[in-house]
Structure formats: C-alpha cells, structure tokens
C-alpha cells in the first residue's frame, strides 16, 4: 500500500507542477473574439495623443454571399477608432466600444500616417514588440495621408481592405517596384546604428469616385523619422542591392532601334563587398540576374546571337541605372538603406569601431562600383515575332 500512496503523491506533485508552468493562457471561444485584420495609427486631434484605427472583421458577414440584390449590404468589417496617450491605453480603450476583445494575432498590417512617421515612430514600436499577440510577420506601411482613410478604401476582390492591402504587398513581387517590410525587418533596421529603416508606401487614388488603395515605392526613414520616398525605379534599384527582387519587367530599346523589348526577371541575387582602397572605404555591389525575353514590339528576329548580346547588355545597363538612381537618392537623403554599414562592420570589425559613429559623414560620399551580370535565358513559347516569313 505505501507504493500506491507514493504513486498518488507523485501524481499530485506532477499535476501541481504542470498547472504552475502553464504560461499566460485563457480560454476564449471564437465567438468572443474581435479578429483584427489591420491597424492604422494617426495623430489625434488632441496634441500629443494618437488615434488608433482597428479593422475588425465580422465573420458572419464575411461568410454570407456578398452584394447581390440583398439590399442590406452591410460591410463585413468594422473600423473602430480610439485615442490615448500610448498605444496600449488606446487599444484597451476599445473595450468601451466593442463587446468582444480585440484579437491581434491575425493582424496583417500596421499603417503609420505620414505625419506621425515624420515625427518619429520609435515610441510607438515598443508595444508591437512587447505584446505577445502581435506577430513579427506584420507588414509595416506608411500612408500618404491618413491611415484610417486607407483602411476605408474599397476592396473590390477582397472583402476587407486590410486583407486587400496585405495581398497587394505580397503581389508586388511581380514588379518589385514597391518595398515589402515585415515588422521583424523593420525592427532590425530600427535597432541598427547605421542602417536606415524602410517601409512600404500606400496611397489613395480615386477611380470612378471609388477610393482605391495603391501600393507604390518605398518610405525611407532616418533613424525613426520619415525623411523621403523612393519612386518605382529607385525602389527596384534598392531591391536589386538588398537582393529582394523576385520578378519584374525591364523595358529596353530594341537592338534594331524601332520598338521596345520587355525582359522578365526570373532570378536575381546580389553581394555587397566592402573593400579598402587607398585608405578609403569602397563598396562593390555584384548583381547577378537572369531574365527571359517576354515581349517585343519590333519585327526583327531577336534570337540571333548579335541581337541577343545587345539585349543582354541593355538589360544590365538598365539594372545599373536603377541602382545608380537609388544610390543617388539614398546619398542625398544620407540614409544607408542598403545596409552598407553592416557589410563593412562584418568585414572590418576593427576599422568599424572608428567609423561607426561617423558613418553619416562617410556614407554620402562613399564610392560604389556596380557590377551587373545579366543573362537572358529563354525566349518564351516562340522565337520569332508574329509576321510573315
């Protein structure tokens, strides 16, 4: 019998330990959650305060057949706003308006309004790092205008604007002309001494009286303050260097002179190699790219070797130009968006100690060599343009 008691004793100890090591947990049924899909942060009217817009979905409306003759046509989402001195206080403030508790793990985007970004966003990031419900995979965006307005744009193919924006970010890989920055990446850059944070830019365009969200370019931060924007081609120049180009179209002049040729980017990679020449820091950027011939508007046969070589050369020139433009812009803004500083740090850790604090002086004048190795591989389903032989 003592054996039985011993087992019982062990069991009790076991259960006590189990129950005490469970971290923070809570039983919540699905119908007590307000699932947040997007968060927008604006300045509140009251100075010093911020206003948060949370886009919460209504699962019932999400499922019901959309539109039609139903008449009611209620939106499947609800944009709640609340304001407070800090983000956390504003988030808790939501409970006065929503019967369900806001649930953030499925949140996909955080949008900062332009004016808040210009003031500096470090103080608002803390909540997003600290709170266990926020994912590091959230996309960080800057809205030209108000963040709350962006969350009210019309999503035609999706039901919820926030989800639409998140998918826009995923779809931008087809052009590589807009940045996509996850919270993790943003924080890494924010916490680096030299590398400048970047974020996607979202703006509102009007098409047939509908407000449509449009993703374009890159927002560039100096430390934690928004200092400028990169346009489409500058953005791709940046992405070439940081190895984020997934796909896209490069349009070059046809070798014959009349017409254009579209080249599709299939694969790209890059290397940043810092070197020291004559006591000066010198950066060499190696870009390797592979593309396909995607379209031609001229009638000539481009698959001949000379034409093909010309195309390859023009392709690398185009890439070279894009990178050059991005570099110029970055040096103008004096923002190391390419993480050149980190590359130097890695290669010359001893030297870095000296220049770390003076990187701002080095960067605008740093000499950069760009080597592009661009190849054309295939010509699609046909070799010749459609014309009589």
């Amino acid at each position: 019998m003592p054996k039985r008691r011993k087992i019982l004793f062990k069991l009790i100890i076991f259960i006590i330990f189990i129950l005490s090591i469970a971290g923070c947990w809570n039983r919540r049924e699905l119908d007590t959650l307000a699932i947040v899909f997007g968060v927008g942060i604006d300045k509140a009217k009251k100075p010093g305060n911020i206003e948060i817009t949370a886009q919460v979905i209504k699962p019932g409306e999400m499922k019901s057949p959309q539109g039609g003759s139903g008449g009611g046509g209620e939106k499947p989402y609800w944009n709640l706003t609340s304001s407070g001195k800090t983000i956390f206080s504003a988030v808790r403030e939501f409970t006065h308006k929503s019967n369900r508790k806001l649930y953030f793990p499925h949140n996909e985007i955080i949008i900062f309004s332009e004016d808040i970004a210009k003031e500096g966003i470090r103080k608002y990031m803390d909540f997003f790092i600290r709170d266990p419900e926020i994912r590091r995979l959230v996309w960080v965006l800057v809205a030209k205008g108000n963040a709350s307005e962006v969350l009210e744009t019309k999503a035609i193919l999706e039901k919820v604007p926030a989800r639409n924006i998140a998918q826009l970010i995923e779809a931008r890989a087809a052009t590589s002309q807009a940045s996509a920055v996850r919270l993790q990446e943003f924080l890494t850059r924010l916490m680096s001494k030299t590398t400048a944070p970047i974020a996607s830019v979202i703006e509102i365009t009007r098409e047939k009286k509908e407000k449509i969200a449009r993703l374009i370019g890159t927002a560039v931060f100096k430390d934690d303050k928004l200092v400028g924007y990169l346009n489409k081609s500058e953005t791709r120049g940046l992405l070439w260097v940081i190895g984020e180009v997934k796909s896209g179209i490069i349009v070059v002049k046809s070798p014959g002179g009349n017409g254009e040729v579209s080249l599709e980017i299939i694969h790209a990679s890059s290397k940043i190699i810092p070197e020291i020449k004559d006591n000066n820091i010198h950066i060499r950027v190696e870009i390797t790219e592979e593309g396909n011939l995607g379209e031609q508007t001229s009638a000539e046969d481009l698959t001949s070797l000379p034409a093909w070589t010309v195309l390859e050369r023009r392709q690398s020139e185009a890439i070279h130009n894009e990178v050059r433009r991005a570099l110029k812009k970055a040096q103008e803004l004096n923002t190391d968006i390419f993480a050149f500083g980190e590359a130097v740090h890695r290669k010359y850790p001893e030297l870095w100690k000296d220049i770390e604090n003076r990187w701002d002086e080095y960067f605008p004048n740093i000499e950069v060599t760009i080597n592009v190795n661009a190849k054309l591989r295939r010509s699609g389903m046909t070799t010749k343009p459609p014309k009589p032989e």
Partner: protein
Amino acid sequence: MLRFLAKKLHFLQLLSQNSEDKQESKSRESSQTSLSRDITQNLKVLKDILGPSNDINIREFSFGYEEKVDAAIIFVDGMVEKTTINESIIKPLMYDSHLFTPKESQTITTSIDLIQRSMISVGDVKKVDSFDELVDDCLYGDTVLLIDGSHEALVISTKGWESRGVQEPKTEAVVRGPREGFTETLRTNTTLLRRKIRDPNFIFESMQLGQRTKTSVCLAYIKGIVNPKLVEEVRRRLKRIKTDAILESGYIEEFIEDAPFSPFATVANSEKPDVIAAKLLEGRVAILVDGTPMVLTVPMLFIESFQSAEDYYSRPYYASLIRTLRFIAYTITILAPAVYVALTTYHQESIPTPLLITMAAAREGTPFPAIVEALMMGTIYEILWEAGIRLPRPVGSAISIVGALVIGESAVSAGLIGAPMVIVVALTAIASFVVPAQSDTATMLRFVLTVFASVLGAFGIMIVLLGVLIHLSALRSFGTPYFSPLAPLSPRDLKDVFARVPLWAMFTRPRTIGWHDPQRQEFRLDPHPPPEESEK
C-alpha cells in the same frame, strides 16, 4: 484508502473460505467415483448424477449369442451422431455378437477389451473407470457403453452436433486472401490451423477450464519456434483460472492479461486462421476456446493492431502506404476533436486566417462552448454506433437516416452545433474504423484528450499523449515489451513497422518474440536472374 484495504481483506477471506468449501464437496463425492461391476448399480448412480434432464438418453439392451450380457449406452441427444451409434455401436453388438464367443478362460474384464478391439467400429474409443470422467465425456457428446460385470466402461467418440459452417469472418473482411474464418467448434478451428501448418512440431495442448461449463481450451504453438518459457507461463496462467464459466475467449483474456487496469489490450485476438497461423509462425502462442470463433494470441505488441493480414498478401509498396495511412488515421481518430477544441479555444493564432474566418463564422450564434459541442457530438456518435450494432438488421437504415440527417444536418441548420464540429466528429468516426483493434481504446483516449484540451489546450494534449506514451513503454505482454520494436528499439524489426519490406527481405522473426529460432528463411531469396553460365 483504509476502507479500500478493509474491503480487499474481506474479499480475500471469502476467497479462502470458498476454496475450502470446494475441497469439502469434492471429498464428499469421491465415495462414488469408481464404477462397480453391477450395471444396475452403475446406472442408478449415473441417473443420480445426470438428473432428470430429458436430453440424456439411456438405452439398455443385451447382447451375446449363447449367454446374454446386459449393456447400456448413455448419450446426450443432439450432441451425438446417431448414425454412428446405430451403425457402429449397437448394430455390431446386437447382430454380430454371435461371431464373438468368449472363451472359457476369458472373464468379462478381458471381454470388454475384446469388444473395444474387435467390435466397435469407431475411431476413438477409450476405457474409463470413474464416474467423473465418464460424465464429462458423455456431456461433451461421447457415448458411454456400460457392460454388466465390468468395472470399466467404454467411452466412444460420437461427437456431432449442429454447428455453423466455416464462413467468411464478418469482423475482418479482406479483398485478397483466404476468406475462411474460425467457427464456434474447437475441433473445426484446430483443423483450420492444422491445415495451414502441417508441421509435426505444431502442438495443440488441451485443457478444460470453468468448473461448470467445462470449456475445452486449446493451447497451440510450434515447438522449436516458440520460447518454452512463454508456453510455460501461458500454461501457468491458464491453470490459475478457477472460475465457474468460460463462455468466450474474453473471459480468459481478462484472467491472464498482464495489465488488467490498462485501457490497452495486451492479448490479441483474431477470427482468421491465416492471421493466427502467421502469429504462431512468429513464435506466439495461440489460445483456442471452444464456443467462440475468436482465437487469442500472446504476447501482443502495440504495432500488431496496425498490421493487417492483407499487408502481406499485397505488394510491399502499397502495403507500406496503407500502413502509413493507418498511423495517420489512428492519430486523427484520437486527436481530431481535441485539436479542434484546443485550436478554437486557446490557439486561434495558429489557424490560417481564411480558415479562422470560416470557423468563426460557423461558431457565430452557436449556443454551446466548443468543448460541450465536442463531447455532445462524440456521445451522440457513440450512441448511434452502439445502436447500429445491436439493432436488428432491417431497422439499421432507419438509424443511419436519423443519425446522419436529423442529428448531423438539422443540428447545424438549427444553429445548435457548428458545422466544423460535425465534420471533425464524422472524420474521427470514419478514421476509427481503419484500426479496428484499437478503436475501443481510441474512443476512451479521444474523450480524455478532448477534456484535457478544453482545460489546458495543446499543453493538455501533450500531457495526455506523454502519459500514454510512458504507459505504453512500460507495458508488457507476457514478458514482451508492448511497444517493441520501437521501445526498446530494435532496428532489425523496423522491417514491419512503418513500412513492410518485401517478404524475401524478412529473414528473421521478431526479436522480442521468436528469437528462439531467429531465421525464418534463407538469405538472398530476392528474385534475380540466374547466374550467367561461364563461356567454355
């Protein structure tokens, strides 16, 4: 705790008293155990023992040419083959006895020998001199021949009763493979096995269990393959059983299993002779019980539940694929509701967003928490399943209509239960049929897991699963680790766990069971072209 102790002690006391009583009654009877020389006296005693039952026939007659000798045959009507009695016992005695004239020197004792040797034309005849044995045999369908003046009787085997023929087993249907199944008759079952294994080392050891039912139990094993210690242990455990009735092999299973309080069965059973034969050939011991088509085998391994006879009859790739599928199905059947409950009440963040929306939409407006839904649907399913088994066949379709349509469809459309839960429970139900040997354990595990998932989430599921794993690794069946060959790991035996290797690559028997004669076959039996003849 103390009360439990007291109860136990009381029970033990009763137990010892009981056995004393039995011994007493035995000694009382023993005064009349042996037959006397007087047939009328013998018949009187027999009538006393057998009582007034009208299925017991006593036929008195006399035979002999010059000098009539009184004789009697006793048999149980319905359990004997009448033609054998008429043609091979009575007829020779009554008509042909004139051919037999006892010589002067022969007494009746030697003449009973003569009758046994030259007159009874039945295969199995034996001499018996005690009433106990005589009555036992008589009640098992043999015919007793009493002859006046002899203190011995002849027991002539005339067993023959109505029995179900060899049919396809309902519980273990196969697409490819033998379709015969065991029957309720022990002799038929041993025949089915003997026909599969024609090895003189294949041994049937029989014994009687159950003081009142006197059920024949047969221990089968192949000498040379089986571990003799295992046979000894099985024999010891069977001999221990002193109960009044053995009606099904389940009775025996409960008396001999290693872990009576474990939810996991440590004794396997099957209805198919080919399955039992295969297990015997791996070095297991089979226990056949008269009156049931379910044959037990020990030791049992956990993995056995996932091995189907057909795995070995179909080609190895497909067999391995199906084997994997069974593991997946088992996982689904024990985990699906628990995981669903844990995900929807604790870990909403791990559900893909579009799926979460769908699930949340389905949950909108349902009145019960997920755990109540899960337990409710689980219980309803078990009720339907139980009803489906017990119902008379023609009513079966009514149950499926009520079950499927009314409860499944209407409960969802009435908003009582979320549609995903119905899907989860239905999936669970279907998956549980894939591993039938573990389906009862799976049901219990499923409920426990679901409750834990509702209290502690995925953490709770982990606790239960780890507990079960520890239990399984500690469990033994007749000295063999239950979870082998996985714990303890024996890499050689993994040939028949997750994948089933080709039969020609299974050189050895399972290490934990048949290691007495490890090699099953020769090496290099894989089909290959004949060696090329060297050019001359």
